[in-house]
C-alpha cells in the first residue's frame, strides 16, 4: 500500500485517523499510540507479510539492546548491535552486489538468485542504529517499548522517510501519552500538506516521468537536445516524486498531531553545492553528517592541530577524505549498484571543490553562475542515479557535451538546412507535438520547483484562507484525476 493508492486514501487513512482521535479522546494517549502501531504493522504487512517478521524482529532486538545500553553504556554492546543491524541490511540489500564484484575481481562471473529486499529496510535500520548510538551517548534517558515501536514503525515515515531522530519524537510521544499531545491542532495543516505532496507526486512527478523514461530508455540513440531534455525532465521528476512523498509523510504525521522533520527546502534554488546539500534530503544528510562525517572529520582535525599539519594535508585528510567516505556511503545507501556510488562520487567532487574554493578564499562567483554550476553538477550526478548502468550514463553525458551530437529533428529540417545544421529523424523528438508537450511540462515544473515552497517549520505562517482552500481543492482534484493513470497513453505519436 502506498500513499497514492485509493485503498490507502479512502479506506485505511480515514479509518485510522478517526479511530486514533476517538481513542485518544475517550481512552487515552497511550491506547491511541497502540492503535498507530497496530495500524502501521498492518500497513507494512500489506506489502509482504513474511518481512513483517523481520521488521518486528529488528524492533525487538534493538529495543533489547537499547534498554541494556541505557542501563549501562557499553562500547562492545553498541558495536555488536550496530554490526548485527548492518549485517542484516548488508545481507538483504548488498549481498549480491558484494559477491558479484568479488567474483569479478577473481575473474569469475557469478550469478546470484535475486534476494527480495524487504521494504524500507534501509530506513528502519539506520533510524535504529542512530538510536543505539544516542542511547550509548546518554542523549536518551529512558524509552518505553511502545514509544520505541511507535518511533520505528510509524507508517507515515516507515517506507520512505524522513529519517527521524528519537530525540525529535521523544517529547511528542511523552506528551501524547500524558494528555493526548497536540491532538487535532495540526490536523488542518496536515491535510493541506498531504494534498500538496499527493499533487506533487501523482500529477507532477508521474506526469513528467514518461518523458524522462523515453530518453533514458534509448541512451545510445540520443542527440544533444534530447539528452538535455531527458536529464532535466528526470531532475524535476526526482524532486517532485521524493519531496511529494516527504510532504505526504509530514502531512500524515500532523494529522496524528506529530511533527516530523522536513526533507526539502527549495533545493533547486541552491547557489552552491554546500547550499544544495542543506536543502536536499535534509534528514539523510543530517544522519550522515552526525554519525559519519562529523566524528571522522573532528577527530582528524584535532590530530591535525595537535601535530601541526600543513593546510593542504589538513584539507586532504580532515575534509576531503571524510566527504568522500560519507558520500560514497550515502550513494551506496540508495541502492546496491556502482551507478549509485558514482552518484555519490560526483557530489563529493562538487563539494570538495566548493570547500576548497572557500578555504583558499578564491573570489566568490556571481550567484547565477554559482547556481548554474551547482545545477549542472547535480544533474550529472542524477544521470548516474537514474541510468541502468555506468556505460549508459556515460553515453548520455557524452551526448550532452559532444558537439557532434548536436542534431536537429527532421521536422525542423527547413531551418536546419538554412543554418547548415545536420538533421535526421530522431527517436525521442520524433514529432513536433511530442517535443512541444515535453518542453511545456519542463517549463511548468521548473517554475513550480523554484516557487512552490516546501511546508515551513514555522507553521503559523500558513493561514487557512479561501485562497488556500481553492488551491488545495484544485490540487486534490488533479491528483485524484490522475491517480489511476497507469502511464501516459501517448496516442499522439501516430
Amino acid at each position, binding site marked *: 500500500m502506498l500513499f497514492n493508492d485509493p485503498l490507502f486514501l479512502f479506506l485505511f487513512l480515514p479509518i485510522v485517523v478517526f479511530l486514533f482521535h476517538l481513542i485518544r479522546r475517550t481512552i487515552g494517549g497511550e491506547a491511541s499510540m497502540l492503535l498507530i502501531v497496530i495500524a502501521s504493522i498492518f500497513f507494512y504487512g500489506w506489502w509482504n507479510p513474511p518481512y513483517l517478521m523481520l521488521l518486528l524482529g529488528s524492533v525487538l532486538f534493538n529495543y533489547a539492546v537499547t534498554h541494556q545500553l541505557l542501563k549501562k553504556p557499553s562500547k562492545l554492546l553498541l558495536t555488536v548491535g550496530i554490526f548485527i543491524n548492518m549485517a542484516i541490511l548488508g545481507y538483504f540489500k548488498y549481498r549480491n552486489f558484494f559477491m558479484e564484484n568479488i567474483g569479478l575481481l577473481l575473474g569469475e562471473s557469478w550469478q546470484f538468485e535475486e534476494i527480495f529486499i524487504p521494504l524500507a529496510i534501509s530506513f528502519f535500520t539506520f533510524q535504529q542504529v542512530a538510536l543505539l548510538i544516542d542511547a550509548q551517548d546518554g542523549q536518551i534517558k529512558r524509552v518505553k517499548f511502545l514509544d520505541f515501536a511507535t518511533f520505528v514503525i510509524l507508517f507515515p515515515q516507515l517506507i520512505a522517510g524522513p529519517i527521524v531522530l528519537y530525540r525529535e519524537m521523544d517529547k511528542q510521544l511523552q506528551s501524547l501519552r500524558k494528555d493526548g499531545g497536540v491532538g487535532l491542532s495540526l*490536523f488542518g495543516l496536515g491535510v493541506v500538506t498531504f494534498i500538496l505532496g499527493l499533487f506533487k507526486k501523482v500529477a507532477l512527478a508521474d506526469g513528467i516521468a514518461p518523458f524522462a523514461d523515453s530518453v533514458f530508455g534509448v541512451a545510445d540513440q540520443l542527440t544533444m537536445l534530447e539528452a538535455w531534455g531527458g536529464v532535466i525532465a528526470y531532475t524535476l521528476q526526482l524532486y517532485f516524486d521524493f519531496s511529494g512523498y516527504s510532504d505526504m509523510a509530514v502531512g500524515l504525521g500532523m494529522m496524528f498531531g506529530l511533527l516530523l522533520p522536513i526533507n526539502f527546502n527549495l533545493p533547486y534554488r541552491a547557489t552552491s553545492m554546500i547550499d544544495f546539500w542543506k536543502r536536499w534530503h535534509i534528514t539523510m544528510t543530517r544522519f550522515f553528517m552526525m554519525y559519519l562525517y562529523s566524528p571522522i572529520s573532528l577527530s582528524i582535525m584535532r590530530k591535525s592541530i595537535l601535530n601541526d599539519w600543513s593546510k593542504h594535508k589538513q584539507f586532504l585528510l580532515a575534509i576531503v577524505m571524510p566527504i568522500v567516505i560519507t558520500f560514497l556511503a550515502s550513494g551506496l545507501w540508495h541502492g546496491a549498484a556502482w551507478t549509485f556510488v558514482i552518484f555519490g562520487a560526483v557530489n563529493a567532487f562538487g563539494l570538495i571543490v566548493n570547500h576548497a574554493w572557500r578555504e583558499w578564499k578564491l573570489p566568490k562567483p556571481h550567484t547565477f553562475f554559482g547556481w548554474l554550476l551547482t545545477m549542472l553538477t547535480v544533474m550529472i550526478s542524477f544521470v548516474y542515479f537514474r541510468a541502468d548502468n555506468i556505460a549508459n550514463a556515460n553515453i548520455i553525458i557524452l551526448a550532452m557535451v559532444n558537439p557532434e551530437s548536436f542534431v536537429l529533428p*527532421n*521536422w525542423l529540417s527547413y531551418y536546419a538546412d538554412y543554418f547548415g545544421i545536420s538533421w535526421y529523424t530522431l527517436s525521442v523528438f520524433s514529432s513536433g507535438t511530442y517535443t512541444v508537450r515535453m518542453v511545456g511540462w519542463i517549463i511548468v515544473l521548473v517554475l513550480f520547483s523554484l516557487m512552490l515552497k516546501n511546508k515551513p517549520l514555522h507553521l503559523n505562517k500558513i493561514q487557512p484562507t479561501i485562497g488556500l482552500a481553492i488551491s488545495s*481543492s484544485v490540487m486534490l*482534484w488533479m491528483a485524484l*484525476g490522475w491517480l489511476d493513470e497507469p502511464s501516459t497513453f501517448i*496516442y499522439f505519436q501516430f
Partner: protein
Amino acid sequence: MDTEWRKFISVSLPIVLIFIALLAEVFAYLLKDAPLRRHDLDRLVVALKEGKSINAPTILLGDSITQDVLKSYRIASTGEVANLTTNKASGVVGSMFLLKRYLKKNTTPKRIVIASTPEFFGHHPTGKAAEIYLTSVFNKTEERSWLLKNINNVSNSKKIDPAILNIENKIGYKALALFALTPDSLIEGDEMPNKMPALESSSVHSSIQRGINGRSNEPLILSKIVGTALTNICKMIPKIDLYFVMAPMPKTTYLKRKEKGEIDSLRNKLFEHLNDSCSNIDFIDINEYRVFPDIAMRDPDHLRRPGWTAEYARLLKEIIIKLSSKNY
C-alpha cells in the same frame, strides 16, 4: 484545532471541493454537444459534418503511413481526391463509417483507393485504442450497435464518470473545439515541391531495425471483421471500382514477404472474399515500382520525412493520375 482551521477543514475546504466539481459538471454539460478534438480522426469527422461538399471522383482510404504523407504533399488537384485516410487504430472499420458519413453529404465517387500497409487488413482495434478511435468517435446509434455486435471488448456500460475526474475528455478536448477553427475541408498537403527534398541516408537505429525484422516475420492476414467491413464498403456503392494500393514497406520486410508469397496470398484472399460484392477490383504494389530501403523508415511502419514521404507522394500521385485516366 483552532477555530480558523476548524472552519477551514469542516466548511471551507469541503465546500470549495464540491463547488469545483460542480463547476466542472456545468462546463461539461455546456460542452456536451461540442465535438471532441483529440486527433486527426476527430478533425476529419468534424470536417465531414460541418465542411462544404467535396463531391470528389476518387475517395482515398488508408492508414497513417499514407495520412502522414498527405499532410505535407498534394497528390491531385483540389476536388479530385477526398482524403479519408486515418490510422491503423481505427482500421478498415473506421474507414467504413467514414465513407458512410461522407456519402450522406456528397455525390457517389467513381472509385475508391485504399492505400495502406498490408497489416491494415489484419488488424482491428480493441480495448483503449478502440475506445479512443472508434467508439468515442462513431457514436451514432446505428454505428454503436454495429460496433457492439461485431467487435468484442467494446464497452457499453455507462459507468459513473464525473467530469472533474475526466477533465481531459469532457472539457479539455471539447473546449479546444471552441478555439480551434472549424475545419471546412479535408486535409490536403501543399503542392508537390519542384525540387524533391533530400532522401535521408543515415543508418537506421538498432531498435528500429529490430522492429523491421520483427515486422518481416509477422504473417499477413485478412481478419473477419475487416472482411465484413470491406464487403459493406462495396455494397454501399454498387459497381464501384475498388483499388488496393500497397504502401511502401522497408526492403527487408518486402523481400521476406515476397519470398514467402505473403503479398500474393493477401491479394488472393482479398479478391476471393470480395468476388461477389465488388465488380471491379485491382491490386497495385508500390514496392514493385520502387524499393524503399530500410533507411527510408523512421520506425518499422512509417517513412522518414520529408524526403522519403515525398517519394511516396510522388508515386501515389502517378497512380491516381493513371487510375483517373482509365475512365471513359
